[in-house]
């Protein structure tokens, strides 16, 4: 790939990935932000259109569901008109989009509650679950990966490899039940199911959240450990700065933590960001098992009652989290990596 033969007045980046838009705008970080935001918009639009389309393919609607099997076709038609379900899909989508852009996600068809109110109740639960899962996984993964990478092929390395391979092969619903069996049923240390709001005490709340977040966090821990360990070993074996640091007489732990880990943390940030989308989808089944009143539980209920307004909102939230996480990862890169910060590439 060669740079195009133009005669630019501004210094042109030779990188073909840098678009014309970004050449004219100022700071490299700013133009990256603009570019990524612009890319996120069509993705979100695509996701919402796709959801709307798929949900419209599904036979049966909330009107039939609400009235039950006894309802006459006239009753159903009347309720459909009241709920706006008789409009063509395109019209309904545009109306929905108009509201969504201004933060109004509509009212639940079943409970008539504004969806944004329902979300406000349930988002904190799912948010806490995800946050704790990340916390558990990273707090464990970083030291374990460092220990393993310090002596590749050593005893710590082998143990961590076996554990993480197993952990990556176990389904989270199975893991959740094993945890319940051991810590709730057999040992009786923690409650098996149920949710305690934060207002009822921090400890009571944490007690209820430990098992569910561990069920999500453990496979993540395995994944991060493997990833970080692999990256660290690569850095230690192949990178010249490691050789330089060693030649200067820097201790092996010091090289590992201060030099190699600093570089590997970039990769880890990426992976964590990309995981977030998949992770939040995984909360659906865990919330169901532990009876946590989060987004996932709301979604399953909404699917059962054909409350597509709520389903649509949940999908948008999930997709938004995934897209925003990607965006944040890119921006973190820009902030942390001097090569991007100063626009040298």
């Amino acid at each position, binding site marked *: 790939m060669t740079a195009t033969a133009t005669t630019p007045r501004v210094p042109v980046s030779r990188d073909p*990935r840098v678009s014309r838009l970004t050449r004219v705008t100022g700071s490299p970080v700013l133009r*990256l932000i603009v570019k990524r935001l612009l890319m996120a918009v*069509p*993705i*979100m639009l*695509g*996701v919402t259109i*796709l*959801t709307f389309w*798929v*949900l419209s393919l*599904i*036979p049966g609607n909330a009107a039939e569901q609400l009235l039950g099997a006894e309802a006459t076709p006239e009753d159903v038609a009347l309720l459909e008109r009241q709920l706006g379900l008789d409009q063509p899909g395109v019209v309904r989508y545009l109306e929905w989009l108009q509201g969504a852009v201004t933060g109004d996600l509509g009212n639940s068809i079943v409970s008539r509650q504004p969806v944004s109110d329902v979300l406000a109740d349930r988002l904190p639960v799912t948010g806490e679950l995800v946050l704790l899962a990340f916390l558990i996984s990273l707090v464990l993964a970083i030291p374990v990966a460092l220990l393993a990478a310090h002596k*590749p*092929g050593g005893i710590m390395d082998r143990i961590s*490899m076996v554990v993480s*391979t*197993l952990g*990556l*092969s*176990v*389904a989270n*619903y*199975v893991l959740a*039940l094993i945890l*319940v*069996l051991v810590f709730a*049923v057999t040992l009786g240390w923690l409650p098996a199911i149920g949710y305690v709001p934060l207002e009822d005490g921090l400890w009571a709340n944490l007690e209820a959240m430990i098992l569910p977040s561990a069920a999500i966090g453990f*496979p993540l821990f*395995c994944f991060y450990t493997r*990833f970080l360990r*692999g990256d660290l*070993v*690569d850095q230690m074996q192949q990178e010249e700065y490691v050789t330089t640091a060693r030649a200067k007489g820097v201790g092996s732990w010091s090289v590992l933590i201060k030099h190699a880990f600093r570089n590997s943390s970039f*990769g880890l940030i990426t*992976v964590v960001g*990309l*995981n977030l*989308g*998949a992770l*939040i*989808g995984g909360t*659906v*089944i865990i919330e*169901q*098992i532990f009876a946590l009143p989060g987004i996932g539980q709301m*979604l*399953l209920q909404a*699917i059962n009652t054909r409350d597509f307004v709520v*389903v649509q909102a*949940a*999908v948008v939230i*999930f*997709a938004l989290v*995934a*897209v925003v996480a990607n965006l944040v990862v*890119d921006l973190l*890169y*820009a902030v942390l990596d001097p090569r*991007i910060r100063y626009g040298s590439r």
Partner: protein
Amino acid sequence: MAVVEPAPSFAIGPEIDEAEAKAGIRGRRRGGNLGTWIPAGLIAFVVIACFLGPTLLSLPSPVGGNILESNQPAFSPGHFLGTDPNGNDILSRLLNGGQSSLWIALAVNILGLVIGGTLGALSGYVGGVADTLIMRVLDVLIAFPSLVLTLAVAQALGPSMTNTIFALAFFSIPAFARVARSAVLRLREMPFMAAAKLAGTPAWRMLFKHLAPNIAPQLITFGMLGMGIVIIIEGALSFLGLGIPDPAPSWGNMVATGQLSLSATPMLVVWPSVALLVTVLAFNLLGENLRARWSGR
């Protein structure tokens, strides 16, 4: 680097990255071919047990058991692993349930591999606007919380094997497409491609005769990891009652029914869990090993 290519993976389950393949180098040196043959043998064992086991061992039917024979312990006469609360033979349910898990995983991965592989290869080979367009559409699918939609579709169409397969296959396409595309981008610069092009080979022939055989190993390797992922997701759907419909057995719905009496009869959960773990582990090990091999380091 500003633009980070997401690791190819289905939207749920363990994500994979190239750095992991590097971690496998040592294992290959130590174990030689064993790292491939042991998981492959394990998979063969699971497949044979699930598909031939019920006939060879002349097991009772997995459904319609006698309620008088419910909850028998393991090793009781006629029921090697005992019976569930409905009096059905657990071993029979386990093996018959495995059949559907394996069928679904195979069908989903073949569909994903063929459709996603073709799209990705085309996208990478043609490049330009078509590439951008295809990849942006796939970005939408990747950002999409696929389990959510699968749940909605499964619930609406009524849980069935075909519906599960189509729903899951749809969302495995972008992952395969990404793998195929990056493989093609690497191959495009190879001398043999230039030679073939100079010889006037038409595009379709380039794709099927030159590119396809070269990207197939990578796609199949990714498919091995995909098998594990799909088995887990299928289990999740059945667990939520949206996969294989009751009373037909599946590992997922066996775990779900066992969960109801977890403290009294934990073995009801343990057996299908072990089956899930062993099968997924074998596919993951095989996939990892093949990948370390193909990455050629």
